[in-house]
């Protein structure tokens, strides 16, 4: 049976993991992702893994940033770091893609 097409959320929707992606936490807090359709692997450092955990379709980018900032209060670049992680995840198609504007 073919894989179901992912549901595409609106552009401002909270980031959500592609349900076809499996994740596995590693011993040092990093994480490995595997997209079962594209068969691509991706690794995340512990900070990126934390971002990934919040990509549940409920937390907005601002809320994710706030959660990560709470864990790493001394880091001044959290907003940029979170944005970078989300961009990487989108580029590797690990997140459900927002619908293109019509």
């Amino acid at each position, binding site marked *: 049976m073919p894989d179901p097409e992912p549901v595409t959320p609106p552009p401002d929707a909270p980031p959500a993991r592609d349900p076809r992606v499996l994740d*596995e936490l590693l011993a040092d807090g990093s*994480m*490995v992702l595997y997209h079962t359709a594209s068969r691509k692997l991706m*690794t*995340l450092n512990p900070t990126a893994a934390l971002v990934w955990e919040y990509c549940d379709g409920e937390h907005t980018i601002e809320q994710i940033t706030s959660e990560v900032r709470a864990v790493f209060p001394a880091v001044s670049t959290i907003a940029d770091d979170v944005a970078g992680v989300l961009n990487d995840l989108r580029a590797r198609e690990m997140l459900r893609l927002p619908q293109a504007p019509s």
Partner: protein
Amino acid sequence: MTDASPDTRADAVRRRIGPHDVAVVVPDRSDRAAVEAILGGFPRIGEGAAGEATYALRRDAAGGWEFWSGGTRTHQATTLEDGLLALEWQVVTDLLARTDDRFHLHGAALADPSGSLSVLVLGESGVGKTTVALALIARGFRPFTDDVILLDPESLAPSTFERAFHVDATTRTLVNGLPHDPAWEVPGVPGGYFLPATWAREPLPVRAVIVPKARDHARPLLVGLPIAEAATTILGFSGSLEHAPALSLRTAARLTASAPCYALYAGPLAPTAQFLAEAVEGLRAG
């Protein structure tokens, strides 16, 4: 339809391969001797074993060979060597298709000389993993497998898979130059194959993963990989990731938590083998 009927034929080679019973009908006596030789590491089974998979390697009217899997002719070969390769390929492919409870990796697995741990040597063909494995065998290591690693996801112990090694002339020359070269001459084994005299059979968890990267270093060097890189490296050699992704990811995570993964920059073979043997002994002692 092939005339393979292994329950009643005396010209079938029967072996237990992994968890499965296999029968290969080979009518020609000399061909059968070759099949007996390359499958000689696997345990013999009796006639009519339950769950037997049936194959046949037969000569055809044109002077070549044809290979049958069940009732289907799947390969034609002009030489016996190619027919034997077709047999090995089909047997291994069928085994892996029916083995969904093991983490499959491409590479060699060996028990250390003390019999207390196992190490994996992962790599694509041509990178030198068989050469490294043979060099370690010459230093007292015992093989679980040279090509098809099947890891228990709970114990992280490799299964014994007694497939004959494929050894090209270059590898054989290299290994023959070692102080303790393995015994090559096994009666009936065709050229290009090496059948170890003994195999590791006890369940030994993996304690190190070695990935050969190069063979031209002045002296051997092991470089430890960060855990995330180790995980993706290991998964890159997995044959089960596509059909059993959750099991493969989980097992790779457990493996990287308990066994360091090293890139091997190999130098000349003898000092590289000694270096690796000492490194593994250090893991055991540590």
